[in-house]
């Protein structure tokens, strides 16, 4: 059997971001394709976020490969792009098309009814996709495929028993399916001028933040460490990568494991790397050890500088923990990147001011002031639907962009209007970035790291200025 997988490109509304934001390998899709191949089939991936092929070329490519089935992944932001792709594929071919990913997992009925896709797969797609492909080829009832949403006699049927695929823990991702040379991290996460890739060592997250669209529910699975190390070894050998992003929601959740893996990263690739973590998991010794093994930057979801808001969103962190974490990263010579959400329930002009002042006082290396977007699958999405702030039929998914968006957020869950929020977002960026101290810090970085850093700082500054001048 042959499968053709597509990761659609981003919509024009997020194009502001395009020079600043990176393009990362679609690891979820890669996992589904690798699983499919491991079970004795063929597959290719077209990552159109990196390739940017025209629709005509995509169709041509599909026809040349002549797959038995097509799988397309979609986030909320690029759902419309995916929808357009499905429609043109269905016009040009009669190959069954399956949609998967965060967005459709949260809204399976909506997704199958509002697009021309034949099937929608919810949750972890590896096994469901394989079972579906086999059933399409060999016949048999589709009713017992867990996680499958389909149409039968005009009715939509969803099987919500997600297939259990514990063996994906040992599954080796086949990175040769992806155009590795075309990927790049976002400017603020650039560590070297060389080749970059992203890896993932666990799946899911044990926390329940209300703004997060939880694809895996409460599931949290550590991947087999040897497999991960082999992947990194492969990336080093074949592409000579010099930097990595570890894509896990919280890489340092298991300290011993993080240290164990970091030693191997250093040993097999000597790449510099960055990861995501939580401020409540900050630890002196851990940071020093990871820093020694090539960790250059940590991204924290600090979310807010107001403890009441933090409490409301169920993030289970406090302002003080953020402060400590930033101090510890500085001590260990690790850059810090904090992500902040403006417009969380309870937010006012005062709390935004408070938040900005707080982050200026702790002074992380990078701050992303995003606006709250209620992504499908999150508690806040349900709240927005209940309050009538989002109408599923008319909502514009292209506006579901958290930062550097050229559109207004779809709605606001606090007393500020979406427009006011965007204004305050710009104000926050100005206030944080246009400080002599901050500018000096990055100037010093250029002096220290050289030409490539000058490039990232220049491009970053350009994006910010363009965004500041843009009127919605």
């Amino acid at each position, binding site marked *: 059997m042959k499968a053709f997988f597509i990761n659609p490109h981003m919509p024009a509304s997020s194009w502001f971001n395009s020079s600043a934001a990176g393009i990362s390998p679609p690891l979820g899709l890669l996992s589904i394709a690798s699983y499919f191949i491991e079970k004795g089939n063929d597959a290719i991936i077209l990552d159109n976020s990196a390739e940017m092929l025209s629709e005509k070329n995509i169709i041509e490519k599909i026809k040349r490969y002549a797959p038995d089935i097509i799988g397309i992944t979609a986030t909320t932001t690029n759902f419309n792009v995916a929808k357009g792709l499905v429609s043109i594929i269905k016009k040009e071919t009669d190959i069954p098309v399956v949609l998967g990913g965060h967005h459709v997992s949260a809204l399976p009925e909506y997704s199958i009814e509002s697009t021309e896709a034949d099937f929608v797969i919810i949750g972890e797609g590896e096994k469901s996709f394989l079972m579906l492909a086999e059933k399409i080829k060999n016949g048999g009832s589709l009713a017992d495929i867990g996680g499958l949403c389909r149409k039968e006699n005009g009715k939509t049927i969803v099987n919500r028993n997600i297939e259990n695929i*514990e*063996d994906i*823990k*040992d599954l080796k991702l086949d990175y040769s399916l992806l155009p590795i040379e075309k990927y790049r991290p976002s400017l603020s996460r650039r560590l070297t001028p060389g080749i970059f890739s992203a890896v993932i060592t*666990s799946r*899911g997250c*044990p926390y329940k933040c209300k703004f997060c669209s939880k694809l895996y529910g*409460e599931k*949290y*699975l*550590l991947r*087999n460490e040897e497999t991960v190390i082999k992947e990194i070894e492969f990336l080093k050998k074949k592409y000579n990568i010099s930097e990595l992003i570890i894509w896990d929601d919280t890489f340092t*959740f*298991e300290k*011993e*494991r993080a*240290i*164990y893996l970091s030693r191997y990263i250093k040993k097999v690739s000597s790449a510099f790397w960055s990861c995501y973590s939580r401020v409540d998991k900050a630890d002196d010794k851990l940071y020093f050890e990871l820093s020694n093994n090539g960790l250059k930057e940590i991204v924290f979801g600090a979310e807010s500088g107001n403890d009441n808001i933090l409490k409301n969103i169920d993030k289970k962190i406090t302002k003080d923990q953020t402060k400590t974490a930033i101090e510890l990263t500085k001590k260990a010579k690790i850059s810090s990147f904090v992500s902040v959400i403006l417009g969380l329930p309870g937010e006012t002009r005062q709390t935004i001011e408070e938040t900005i002042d707080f982050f200026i006082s702790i002074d992380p290396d990078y701050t992303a002031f995003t606006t709250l977007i209620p992504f499908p699958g999150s508690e806040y999405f349900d709240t927005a639907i209940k309050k009538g702030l989002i109408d599923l039929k008319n909502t514009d998914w292209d506006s579901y962009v958290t930062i550097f968006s050229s559109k207004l957020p779809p709605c606001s869950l606090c007393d500020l209007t979406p427009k006011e929020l965007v204004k305050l977002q710009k104000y926050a960026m100005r206030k944080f970035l246009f400080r002599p101290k901050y500018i000096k810090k990055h100037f010093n970085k250029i002096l220290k790291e050289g030409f490539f850093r000058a490039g990232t700082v220049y491009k970053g500054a350009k994006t910010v200025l363009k965004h500041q001048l843009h009127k919605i």
Partner: protein
Amino acid sequence: MTTDIVLISPHQPKTAKILRTASGITQPLSISYIASFLIKNGYSVKIIDNDIENLTPIDLETRIRQFNPISVGITVSTSSTNTAIEIAKIVKKINGEIKVIAGGIQPTILPHILLKNNEIDICVMGEGEITSLELLRAIKYNRDISEINGIAYKKNGEIKITEPRKLIDNLDELPIPAYELLPMNRYTLPASRRLTSYPIASVITSRGCPYLCKFCSHNTVFKNKVRFRSPENVLEEMKYLRKKFDVREFVFWDDSILLDKNRAIKIFNMIKKELPDIYFTCSSRVDHINEGIAKLMYEAGCRMILFGAESGSQKILDSINKQITVGQTIKAVEICRNNKIMSFCSFIIGTPEETKETLEETRRFVLKLDPDFAIFTIFTPLPGSYYFNRLINNGEIDIGSANWNDYINLLSSSAPAASVNSDLTKEELVYYQKKLFRDFYLRASYILKRIKKIKNKQMFYQTIRGVKAIIKLEANKFYE
């Protein structure tokens, strides 16, 4: 496919075969709690409940081999000490590198008994969730285990015991036990406690007990401190079980569910409202129940309460520090009768102060009390209990030569573990146990009552199961 840890609940020894006829086997909550806690932290876990599966050594070996584990955790009660060691041997035969960890009451009290076997590498002492996680991390990522609290291990042939593990403050932080890893529709309750024909599930809503009964070993683990789960947290678990496994019969394993009455009332009210179609059975102290709460319990679906009546002699009750009176037992059974809840009284015979006279008192008492069910266990000095420590200190038990297969206090097919009673011999105790069962169950009025209560096929089979157990006990020859 590799697995980080396989958790095993061992089978009971052959001496428990009569007990197994009558008793049910319920979900092994201890390893299920540890499993879900490890899974929540990203580790891969499998469970083999060999108590219910009863795999042959070869099948067990094949099963473990399939899982390809880094480590194996075995929960060890006093009576399953020997079978646990048998399982450990199987594991080490598969691969000597697999770390074998023992947890449960026996390793908590007597770690050296287990560690003297080459096949057991580490004992987890006390509450196991956090210790297991730290231990598994260390094993997997080659870290030193000497700083992990709550374990005993061997180093250069010497047994090291680390600092005790602190109890978890907030039980609500623990995830729901990993019921999905268990063969859920195979579990059942003792014949006498079955209420429906739907799948059953065990739930525990608190850990610990503030009382200090001298025969009980719970306090060694839980330090005389009680921690409660919130009613919301309990209901979440029950609703999950109802929805996912169609469970409509619950058994609460709390030492006494009515310990915090306000919380219990809240739980019962929530069950009444949110799970109107379930039944449950639970345990309580006789001094905790009253008419009002019994009425509410019935409305919530409670159909049976198990009481530790222990003895019909006030002198014995005082000597074991149970802090109840025979009057309270009579009252509790009466309250149940008034509220259509069945009462199930458990008695212990042969505690150190027991005499023929007190036994006779108990016999007369239980006949007058006439609860729906009664069981008569022979006193067994459980490791961790006050009496066990006293017997060791007095040199009356030699731990080294103890046969743990005999530490079964009910329907055992072997003689009692240790005679601790100067007035009564082991033979006399077994004779009395049989006599009490006979005198209680083989009464015409009682038999009639039971027959009247048979309402469906399920109940008929349960009654037969109970009758079979009593006959087997009668027919068993302890001393040949």
